[in-house]
């Protein structure tokens, strides 16, 4: 039971933070399929920083953690500027640009990882080995039956993600910036008429999405997977996009979607190990989260509506 909760949380939370970033971007009117690419570049930058400084800051320690986080956020944000450049400045098709970012991210990170490994460490591997960041358990709270598991063996990442997620939620719904941002996605012309810079707002939205995906990427790399290679994040970017569409571009329902993915995954794993089924049966169990999601969507997506101006290239002269 405990492991289901612990594993479920450490898988759902990175998905959630990436999805929230994507919500920011899409609510501002920019389609963002590039989450996966942002996550990858973030994870790569963070992992690289950890590996390069492992002599000074021991892997798994607090200093190394902070460094990894900072570099992941910086790297992913910088990379997201490329998506911004293509979507805003070069009026590229946003779907196309997003896919391009993913392909570019995989190509670049694999190439660089190999080059760095062979020139600095003399080994021909496409992996950056990482430790696992410290886990800690909150005393007293963790002793409550069942719910206590939420407070056991928490990665520091999870705490950071929860704090950032709450802040992101607050800013999107209760601050002026969030209101403007959401308005940009529904009626950019009206926002511009109020004297607010649509281009700048959208640019910030893309950068926020980059930064948050960076957190998600390094969280995967520096905790459950304990290495960086291009196949640790493939698929998860699209999964978090699925979560946010499932959540109708709203943060709270998206949280539930991410929890469904995370918990049915960990539940599936522990059921198959509990029943001592041969490993082939885990395949059948692994389909559960996705079948469940499809079924839920059949009942709940009748009223799904994407932001009105999503994907439209902003043209000032249209006003």
């Amino acid at each position, binding site marked *: 039971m405990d492991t289901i909760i612990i594993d479920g949380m450490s898988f759902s939370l990175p998905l959630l933070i990436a999805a929230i970033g994507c919500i920011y971007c899409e609510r501002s009117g920019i389609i963002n399929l590039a989450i996966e690419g942002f996550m990858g570049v973030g994870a790569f930058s963070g992992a690289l920083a950890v590996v390069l400084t492992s002599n000074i800051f021991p892997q798994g320690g607090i200093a190394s953690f902070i460094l990894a986080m900072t570099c992941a956020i910086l790297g992913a944000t910088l990379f997201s500027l490329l998506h911004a450049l293509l979507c805003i400045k070069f009026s590229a098709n946003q779907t196309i640009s997003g896919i391009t970012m993913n392909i570019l991210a995989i*190509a670049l990170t694999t*190439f660089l990882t190999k080059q760095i490994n062979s020139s600095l460490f003399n080994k021909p591997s496409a992996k950056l080995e990482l430790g696992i960041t410290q886990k800690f358990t909150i005393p007293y709270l963790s002793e409550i039956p069942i719910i206590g598991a939420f407070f056991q063996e928490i990665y520091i990442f999870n705490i950071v993600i929860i704090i950032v997620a709450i802040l992101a939620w607050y800013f999107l719904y209760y601050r002026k910036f969030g209101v403007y941002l959401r308005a940009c996605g529904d009626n950019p012309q009206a926002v511009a008429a109020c004297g607010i810079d649509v281009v700048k707002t959208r640019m910030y939205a893309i950068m926020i999405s980059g930064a948050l995906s960076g957190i998600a990427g390094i969280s995967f790399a520096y905790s459950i997977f304990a290495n960086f290679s291009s196949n640790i994040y493939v698929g998860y970017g699209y999964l978090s996009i699925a979560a946010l569409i499932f959540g109708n571009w709203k943060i709270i329902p998206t949280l539930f979607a991410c929890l469904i993915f995370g918990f049915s995954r960990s539940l599936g794993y522990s059921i198959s190990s509990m029943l001592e089924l041969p490993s082939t049966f885990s395949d059948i169990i692994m389909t559960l989260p*996705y079948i469940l999601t499809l079924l839920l969507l059949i009942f709940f997506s009748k009223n799904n509506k994407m932001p009105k101006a999503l994907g439209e290239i902003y043209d000032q002269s249209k006003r």
Partner: protein
Amino acid sequence: MKKIKIPLISLGLSLITGIIVILLIGKNPLTAYQNLLQGSGLLPKPSYAGYKNMFTDFMVFLNTLTPMVFAALSVVVAFKAGLFNIGVSSQMLFAGFIATITIGYSPLNGFIAKPLVIIIGIMAGALLGALIGFLKYKFNINEVVSSIMLNYIVQYTTSFFINTKYIDVVSRQSKNISPDASLTLKNIEIAGLKIDIPLGFVVAIIVVIIIKIIINNTKFGYEIEAVGKNKEASTYAGINVGITLVKAMLLSGALAGLAGVTYYLGLNLSIQPRTLPTIGFDAIAVALFGNLSAIGSFIASFIITIITKGSAYMSSISKVPAEIASIIIALILVFSACGAYIKLKKGAK
């Protein structure tokens, strides 16, 4: 001429960037590019193994190219209807799996088995594609989400069946299909050469022409494009938007199914469990590079396959890392995504 200008510019710019990168890691870019063409059988290599020459290399290249052409067409058809088919990979896997277990392991002779493989592939792919369209039409489920969910579901379910029933314990893949069911005739001895003859490639050329005609010259093609451009206007014009979406996904899935059978029962003879073919995702890129047209995606598949296929030879001969190839492809895409801007600027002048 106008149409191919932007793809050409992007190709040129990315090849130049590739040259710079290769120079930076201290290798000779010209030999590297020459190796790409040699690896694809478009230029002669300095030496060949027995029974092989440039022509056999070229046939292998065509064999690799075939699934890519179908997959790119699949993306194009969906895109025309304003849909984003990110599920090409699972449609491929599903079609390949169904064709493998029904025909691949049957004792049927080649003249019956090969057409059946193609028909079953088309039907299986179309079924999965139409399901995505139906979910969108009936329940308003975004096609991106349902395709991603189906990607996982197909990947794990087929893996379960392969691992329990059809596994080859040595290769950890599904058992090889019978040569009669394969869409590629392997190692045929002609004039002292051992040649792979990809029959799927002939089908691919026919299908490219059919799709071009459907898109440009039929009512159905017109309806698809109208729905893709503006759903409200299409409704006013009397087009049934929902049905058109389902039909477009059906066609897109059928093409993905063809990609699947040529990939799993032609290029390969077995299925690797738990793995989606990356072609399904690369095809999105190829279709975009090909200007989202039928002929365009054929040419784009050709160019991109030269780079991917040749990269193995390049890295083995001149020790340029094969990943350079994927960087060049990514750059081609980045530059062609900026195509709209180049058009816009020209309009302003």
